[in-house]
């Protein structure tokens, strides 16, 4: 499903060069949930950004179902993220001026889904994340956990093959974090999505099928 080979990314140059990734290579099988752990630093986020084509590596390749992501142009990468790879951010990344339902509908609008289908899918996802009664509320009116659940629902709206989550519980209290992780795990299984999740949370690691550790830019 996801094949990473010899992936390297360095920020800056000379003495100030930061090697975020050094020759990383690994595979992720379809439906697998992988936790990426490691000390605070640029490595985890860099890896996740490279997987969805948000950033370009210095060397190495990322293949998704055999297609080389690192060779795609900007528009193709946009299409890839629209159709195949979704993100969940630590800061939720919701658009403040849109309601919960409208936020979830954004990826569907990007795919130009018909309004009726979009409404059905949004309602389904709101129910899945338990926010049906909060559909018309704006992010500022939701708790952190609710916002992250909206972000997860949005990430799943376009039925992606790969879900990339960057520290999804990083801004949540422990109790809420557990609930969100459980939700994420359940949805990954029910939707058949491959998930790659960076985290510091041991519980999240425990819920994952496998763990990748990044230390000094190297993945093991």
């Amino acid at each position, binding site marked *: 499903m996801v094949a990473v080979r010899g992936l390297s990314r360095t920020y800056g140059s000379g003495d100030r060069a930061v090697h975020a990734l050094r020759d990383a290579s690994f595979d992720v099988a379809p439906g697998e949930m992988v936790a990426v752990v490691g000390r605070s630093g640029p490595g985890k*986020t860099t890896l996740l*950004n490279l997987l*969805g084509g*948000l*950033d370009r590596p210095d060397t190495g390749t990322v293949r998704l179902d055999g297609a080389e992501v690192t060779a795609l142009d*900007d*528009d193709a990468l*946009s*299409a*890839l*993220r*629209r*159709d195949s790879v*979704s*993100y969940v*951010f*630590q*800061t939720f*990344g*919701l*658009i*403040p*001026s*849109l309601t919960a339902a*409208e936020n979830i509908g*954004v*990826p569907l*609008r*990007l*795919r*130009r*889904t*018909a*309004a009726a289908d*979009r409404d059905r899918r949004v309602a389904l996802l709101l129910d899945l994340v338990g926010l049906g009664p909060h559909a018309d509320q*704006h*992010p*500022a*009116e939701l708790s952190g956990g609710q916002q992250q659940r909206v972000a997860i629902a*949005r990430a799943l709206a*376009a039925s992606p093959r790969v879900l990339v989550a*960057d520290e999804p519980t990083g801004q949540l209290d422990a109790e809420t974090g557990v609930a969100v992780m459980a939700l994420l795990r359940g949805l990954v299984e029910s939707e058949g999505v491959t998930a790659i999740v960076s985290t510091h949370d041991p519980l999240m690691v425990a819920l994952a099928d496998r763990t990748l550790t990044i230390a000094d830019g190297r993945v093991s």
Partner: protein
Amino acid sequence: MLTLVLRRALAQRALLAGVVALVTLGTTVLGVGSLLLDTTQVRAFAAAAQQQPREDVDVTAFLVDVPATDLAGVREDAEDVVGDVLAPLRPTVTSTAVSRMRRTSDGKRLAYLASTDTLRQRAILTSGRWPAAPGEAVVPGAAASRLGLQVGGRVTLGREVGSGPNETPVTVEVVGTFRPSTRAGWASDPLTGRGYDASYSDGAVTAPAAGPFVVDGETFAASASNIASLQVTGAPVMALASDASMTRVADALGSADTLLGTKVGDRVQISRVASELPQTLTRLRTQQSATGSTVLVVLLLATSLAATALLLAGRLLARVRGEERVLLTGLGLARRQLVALSLAEAAMLAAAAAILAVPAAALTHAMLTHLPGLSAAGLGQRPAATGTLLLTVTGGALGLALALVVPVLGRPVSSSRAPTPIRSGAGVLLVVLAVGAWWQLRSPASATDGTDVVRVLAPVVCVVAATAAAVRLVPLTLGLIAGRTGRSTGLVLPLATHQAARRPHVGGAFALIALATVAAALGVAVHSTWDRSQADQAATRVGTDLALRLSAPPTIAEATAVSAAARGASTSGITDRPLALGSYVGTRGEPPRLVALDAARAGSLVRGRLDGGRTWAGIGRLLAPSAPVSGVRVTPGRITVTGTPPDGTSAEAAVTLVVEGPSGVRQTVTGSTVPLDGRPRTLDEADDLAGSHIVAVRLALTGGPSSATGTSAAATVDVTVPSAGSTAAAPRDWHVHLLDEQDGSSTAADTSSRQTSGTTTVSTRVRLDPAQLEYGGVDLVASIFAPPTELPIAMSRQLADALGGVSTGGRLSATVDLVDLPLRVEAVVPTVPSAPGRPAVLADADTLSRLLISKGQLDTVVDGWWIGEPQAGTARALKALDLGDVVTRSATADQLRRGPLQATVTAALVLLVVAAGLMLLAGAGLVVGADRPSRSAEVARLRAMGATRRAAARIVLVELTLVLGVLVLTGLAVGAAAAAAVGPDLVLSDTGRAPVPPATWAWPWATEATLALALLAGVLVVVAASTRIVVGRSGPDQLRAGDS
């Protein structure tokens, strides 16, 4: 602490640079405004003072009845007084002395001498030369003509009339003739410059009078004439005039009468010092104040804009520094320390802005004063930093910079606050405030020397409140648009409209952008309204396209010359005289006026707005006579008078003809008294009337003792006119009217005409008591027209109100030239043309003339001419005739627009529009700039969700364009409403009152559309640049950013 301020400023230098730019812009506007109100107004006052006519600033001492022996001493004393009064303006003092009337050599007429220093400034030489040696004199052409004087001829003036007369005759040689060049310069002449008066009366003596015989001072003194009037005039150097110097003169005038009286003592009968200078000073101050009020309104609007911009900047700064503030507070920084920190920063920003604003304001002001209108008015100035400018800019910069502190006083701004819902209570309050301010403006303007604070504040409050209220509807409008796009499948438009409709922290930004647009649109519309009002005022003030105001009654030849100069344009002789209506004589300096013209041509002649869909042509039809007058046409030849007296009585007749020239002007020709002895007597005075028509004949019959025994006898007078080839009017067309007819009198008369080969004879037969000829005589007028019973008039609304609500159909009695006239009100009009806002009546000149003739007042009624739609060059041709003042509607409008005291309005409005445009751009830049980090994060998230770079850019672009576009359109709508509601109230006339006719709002579509496009284009440039930056900086690193 200072280190923290400096380091933070360094880190936020871009934002702070924008803030400094805003403060600089605001204070520059304030600085320019202060210069417009200070140095430019002072300069405008001086320039306007220099343009005042002499008669409005001269100071004149009038001294009546001065013995010849006291002339030199009295004149010296009067010169001292006048010189002292005008000392601040270094006057040139001149004098004019007029002798008592003297009998002419035949003893039947009167004549008088004069000596003046200003003859050449007040008269135009029409033949011969000016006096150059003792014993030489010049006389008015009319006097020379009536006395039969030729250039080079000598004339002797006999003994003086009155008590204690000088019996020694004076002989002078006439070396030239002249005519007055101005009417005003001859106001104190016994014959007001007309040169001859057939029925002059000074109360004691009544006789035909001619003069003056203007001689040099030496000749005058040698004549030892007693002085009827001595006039000593001081002409100030108005280049030295300022408010202060004119005030000193006006103050000195207050005691000048007493001072002169003390000095001349009982050497004169009457002494008086008169001047229009105090009134001129008041008028100039009023004009200055009126302009100042408009400039102040503009400045207040600009200041409101700047304050709004700075409050917005303060909020944005507070938002950007929200986290820092929370941190500092957490570290134990007290609220007052936070405020002190902000104050220190505000002071530094104010200092930076002030340093920039002083030269910017001086330069901008200099550029504004070099705009064509201001430069032409003599207001062009070089850049200069005055004390007022420094004070204004420093104070303004501090005040505006303090606006940055205001948000710090409140709670920290939450970056993720939900959009503020519309608070209907505040909206209603704003609407009430706007309506209240508008209502305040409805009250009539009163002319004051100072600025009416309410009238300055009210429009600003109205505009700002209306804008704030309207802005509250913008989110609703955007919400409606968002609702319409919500069901579409795409992302760009729905997301952009949703974002636009639900932007947080929008109040200040929306208010700034809308208010800037309102101010710019209002500035353009008010200028247009003001400009249109000046044109309307000029039209009403002149009354027509081109007006010639005669300096002396016209001759038929002059009337013909005027007609020729008009070259076929619609032309009418006009009457413009004071009148009294019963006991109503108007207010001081503003007597009711009678304006008469050829009413049948009113449609093509009269300019100025009428109400209720009426037209001047329609009003003219109500006033015009049913048929024109067709008199007896005179062909070359002699006019003779043949008469027979009543039996047993010797009688003579004084015949006065009223002739109408080809141009329609009527003139009197007074013949010598002829005996009624059955023999034809030639009227020598009427030897050049060929081409004219005789329309009336006045006969004054007198006689000696009668030997007749009866009380009824007949006298006949035939006036035979050469009229070869013409068709005489039928006998029944002549009407005769006895003047001074007394009750019970048996006097009766009838007139008929008959035509023989080459002549027409107008025969009048009078049945009278022969004794009547000896005691008073018989005076009658025979006319080719029936005497009108009433004069139809259109009355000004002001006069109708002053008379207690006279309405159409009402009848009044008026006195014109001491003649009682019955008036019939045919219409009430807002104002009579050429008499704006004054009590006045409009009538037909022909009907007026007929009515006056029928009452024995035969003098011409023509005081000037009006010309409608004149051709190019007509004004120049009329000026070349030198008959009086030529005034055009366009020149008057130009004067009103570009007069020194008015031109500043244009500069202020240009300043407002430019400042508003810059504020709009600055505000738009501030809004999108402050939003940039959060927008970049949003774009990064959209990109992470699969939006292409183009789609993300379009979302930002559409959203910002929609928001700013709706705001600009809202601003234009409010601007149009404000222009309609308060625009006309910002226009004051140069009298400081509401203009006449009232100003009507103008909305120059083309200019406003251009302005809107320019504003939108400017906003789009800001938006496009911002979008480019937002999208360019939306990298993956933004994905971990919060929602701030």
